[in-house]
């Protein structure tokens, strides 16, 4: 290996380029910019202001934050629903007044004051909601007018009752606690804001109500067509905003024990600024409560921080303006270009030096030498079939195969002329196996592990495994289940070829050549799925050894076959039994003579092997060239290989003519015949094996003679 090549190997195998792409696929990266702004703001002010992070100081200084966050949460929800609520300040002030009026003037209990505040907020919100939602007035204009109205009303009320409020002797421990106390170190307002934020966040991302809000904000017409009650949803967002503001108003009433003309003044512009800094988009659809909260913290920390530092009027508006412009500009550019970046960086090839191999060329004299025997195979279903990846036969000699259209087709014995669609599953039914009860188990590409009963009932067995916490992509979802086999105890062992690409993007996986293939096991007893092995280059065929104590599985892009021990001293471990084959292995199945059949879906080429040593070249290729000009594994020629328990090659079959079975993805031996399938083929081949046991069948080999 030259130094340059070693450098390349380190560069591409040690630097986790793929993580960049994986991180970018995550929705939470939307929050990156506001989050950075938040950290920077807290960092700067925390280091300049002495005692900023001190608990007692935080307890006090976050009270206002709690109230403000509540208002921002309400505003965020309205904005997500495609509206805007400029009247939050008025609602806040009026609710504050209601609480104060009930408590201090009517001298009622604090809880009644709370009820009054909430009622005020809900009624005001409902008015906004009715006007904007049901009468469908324009939100900006309407809430602007209700804002003026509410403010005027509040000013009148405050000026009429201000003196009376002061004369009141009413007091309450609860009020003092809400206003001044702390609970587990945090003030009531922070607790309330936190709880409401969590509830709202869950509601928005996971609940029906939240989805409806997002849908209405994202596209009113689509939401309507989807059967969502758009008007009611819009109405509810304003009611919710009124609710949030009224809690805020109640809290400030408790904190200041009064209401003054300045209560809630300019709150709407502050809340709007906070939502915008956080990255909630105006006009709906994009944003989250988390973003709103981050915005709220940034805005308040900054305003109060600058005041605390003694800066004069204007400085904080100036800084806020700069921050707003910078944050929003970067955020918008970022969101706009994220997908472009993602497209550019997602494919991140690694370096691999394939081992020296023996030639499979005819006449080369190696054990891999291909011949022309398969070209003599009879054809079944010629022209009707599209892509029979795997084939299998049942006890009654009927032949089953999957197709590209997501169907499992059954050909009837003995002549295999007549056929029917046995079941429709969808996806790409790849690996097939019969269990003890005669259910047909199929590994369906892009879907999961399915079972089809003899009565054709389709049942999903598994579509997810446990998530590994070190992975950034959610690897619980199966993306490319490929082949399966069943152990004597009924457990189903199967492979999931890649974690990074969907089944139909297998070519990208081969070009990237990253080892993300897995071996999994499904336990029918409790329905659980576990990951046994991880980190192989495209795990493919699986076959239970004849004694049922170990299994073989193929690692396609590395041209290797491994043996995984189920029991015995090496249980739970895998060892490589065949390495550096000249072809890419696919399905593996039992042979009647105690050996194993293995399909080669394609043959290695020096050019592709070379390209594997040049990840940079492959990366450039995927970016600059149209897909049909990419260099990827040759799948035009293949063959069938028989190997023994030790991994020794017994014989090799091929179709040099290229007419019948140029590439093979599966083969089954049944009563002296070999049935051959290929995912790009339009037929199944039936080849008479010389000297094979004419009575041997798969089901018998697995489950014994017919009961």
């Amino acid at each position, binding site marked *: 290996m030259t130094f340059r090549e070693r450098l390349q190997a380190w560069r591409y195998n040690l630097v986790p380029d793929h993580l960049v792409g994986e991180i970018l696929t995550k929705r939470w990266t939307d929050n990156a910019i506001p989050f950075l702004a938040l950290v920077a703001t807290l960092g700067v002010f925390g280091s300049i202001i002495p005692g900023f992070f001190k608990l007692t100081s935080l307890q006090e200084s976050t009270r206002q934050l709690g109230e403000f966050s509540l208002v921002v949460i309400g505003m965020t929800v309205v904005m997500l629903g495609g509206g805007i609520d400029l009247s939050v300040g008025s609602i806040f002030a009026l609710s504050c007044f209601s609480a104060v009026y009930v408590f201090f003037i009517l001298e009622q209990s604090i809880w009644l004051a709370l009820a009054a505040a909430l009622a005020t907020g809900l009624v005001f919100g409902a008015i906004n909601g009715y006007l904007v939602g049901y009468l469908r007035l324009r939100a*900006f*204009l309407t809430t602007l007018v209700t804002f003026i109205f509410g403010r005027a009303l509040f000013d009148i009320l405050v000026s009429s009752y201000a003196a009376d409020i002061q004369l009141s002797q009413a007091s309450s421990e609860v009020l003092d606690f809400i206003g001044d106390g702390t609970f587990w170190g945090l003030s009531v307002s922070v607790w309330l804001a936190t709880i409401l934020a969590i509830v709202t966040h869950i509601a928005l991302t996971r609940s029906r109500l939240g989805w409806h809000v997002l849908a209405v904000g994202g596209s009113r017409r689509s939401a309507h067509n989807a059967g969502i009650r758009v008007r009611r949803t819009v109405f509810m967002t304003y009611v919710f905003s009124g609710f949030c503001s009224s809690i805020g108003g109640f809290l400030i009433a408790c904190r200041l024990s009064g209401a003054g003309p300045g209560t809630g003044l300019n709150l709407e512009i502050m809340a709007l600024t906070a939502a915008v800094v956080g990255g909630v988009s105006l006009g709906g659809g994009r944003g989250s409560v988390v973003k709103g909260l981050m915005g709220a913290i940034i805005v308040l920390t900054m305003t109060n921080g600058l005041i605390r530092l003694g800066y004069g009027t204007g400085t904080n508006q100036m800084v806020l303006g700069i921050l707003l412009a910078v944050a929003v500009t970067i955020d918008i550019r970022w969101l706009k270009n994220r997908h472009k970046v993602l497209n550019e960086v997602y494919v991140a090839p690694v370096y691999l030096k394939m081992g020296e191999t023996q030639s499979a060329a005819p006449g080369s004299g190696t054990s891999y030498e291909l011949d022309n025997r398969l070209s003599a195979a009879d054809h079944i279903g010629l022209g009707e079939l599209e892509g029979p990846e795997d084939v299998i036969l049942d006890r009654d000699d009927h032949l089953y195969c999957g197709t590209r259209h997501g169907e499992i087709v059954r050909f009837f014995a003995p002549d295999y002329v007549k056929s029917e669609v046995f079941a429709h599953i969808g996806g790409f039914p790849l690996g097939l196996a019969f269990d003890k009860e005669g259910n047909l188990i199929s590994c369906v590409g892009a879907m999961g592990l399915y079972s089809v009963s003899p009565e054709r009932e389709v049942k999903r067995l598994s579509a997810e495994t446990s998530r590994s916490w070190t992975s950034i992509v959610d690897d619980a979802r199966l993306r490319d289940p490929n082949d399966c086999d069943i152990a004597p105890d009924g457990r189903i062992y199967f492979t999931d070829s890649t974690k990074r690409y969907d089944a139909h993007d297998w070519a990208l996986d081969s070009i990237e050549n990253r080892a993300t293939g897995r071996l999994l096991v499904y336990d029918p007893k409790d329905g659980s799925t576990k990951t046994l092995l991880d980190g192989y280059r495209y795990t493919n065929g699986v076959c239970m050894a004849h004694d049922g104590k170990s299994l073989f599985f193929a690692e396609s892009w590395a041209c290797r076959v491994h043996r995984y021990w189920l029991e015995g001293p090496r249980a739970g471990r895998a060892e490589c039994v065949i390495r550096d084959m000249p072809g890419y292995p696919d399905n593996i199945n039992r042979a009647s003579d105690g050996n194993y059949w293995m399909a080669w879906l394609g043959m290695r080429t020096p050019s592709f092997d070379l390209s594997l040593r040049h990840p940079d070249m492959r990366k450039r290729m995927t970016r600059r060239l149209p897909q049909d000009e990419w260099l990827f594994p040759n799948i035009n020629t293949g063959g069938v290989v028989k190997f023994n328990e030790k991994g020794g090659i017994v014989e090799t079959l091929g179709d040099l003519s290229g007419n019948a079975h140029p590439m093979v993805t599966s083969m089954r031996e049944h009563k002296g015949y070999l049935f051959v399938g290929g995912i790009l083929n339009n037929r199944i081949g039936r080849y008479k094996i010389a000297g094979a046991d004419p009575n041997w069948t798969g089901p018998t080999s697995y489950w014994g003679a017919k009961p």
Partner: protein
Amino acid sequence: MNATGRPNWRRLNQEGIVFAIAILLFAAAALGLPGFLTADNLVAIVRSVSVLGILALGMAVVIIGRGIDLSAVAIMAMSVAWYLQLLNTGTSDGLAFAYVIAGVLAIGLLNGFLVAYADVPAIFVTLATGSFVFGYVRSQLITQDAVPVPQGHWVELLGGVRFLDIPIEVFVFAGLAFLVFLFLRYTKWGRFIYFAGDNPVAARNIGIPVRPMLVLRYALSAVVALIAGLLTAASLHSINTRVVNSTLLYDIVLVAVIGGIGLSGGRGGVRNVLVGAALIGILLNAMTIIDIPLLYQNLIKAAILLGAIIVDGIINPRDEQTAQQGDI
């Protein structure tokens, strides 16, 4: 009136409704309020809304092009405050004015640039620049909220200029309204604003310089704000920067939008601004004559405006199938 002879209520859009309310109020005030229907009072009405109207003209141009300028008030107050501060600290008039014009244009261009070339929505950009302009000027360039006009300066004299006993603001407002009308209606660039506001993508595709136009609009709006600021200073002999924190900005948007200029762009014109300004002007004047306290004035104003938009909402309903996305 349509063919069947019935009045066609569908024709009655928001502009019509607001206009009708304004006429009604005017008639009621003329009959019921002594001294309302005098020449002096009518002039006073116009004058009371002239600065608001001028700002609304600038806003209208921006809104028609599918934008919004929330920095108008900040630019108005702060540019003039800076100008007066420069004068008070002894900078020569010409130089000071050159500075201020440059500053105002710079902010207008910055607004336009960020909206046009960085694709940041106008409401964010102008919110940010408005805040910045206020903050920067207030903290770095001037020392007090209010800055007085130097004695005998032309701005002070401007406030005293009369023609036919009508104050200068009225003429400036009328003149600007007419100019903006001509610009929007009869010039190429004026028409381009409508095209760009109606469908920016299509406008770009047929070869209209959409982005430079955007920059132009914000620059225009900034200059209009400066003019409004100078007039304010002229009549008050000082400028108070606290106006930035007031609801003036909302009033500007209100005047433009209540008159029927759609926030989604492409619709409306100077007439709508005049109608909106007329309603507000008559309303405020009548209420002041009756001596309604300011607190109640706001309540009444809001109630009447709410009535107008509700009536519009009922007569011209929008439904899910026709509503434009992002039309807030």
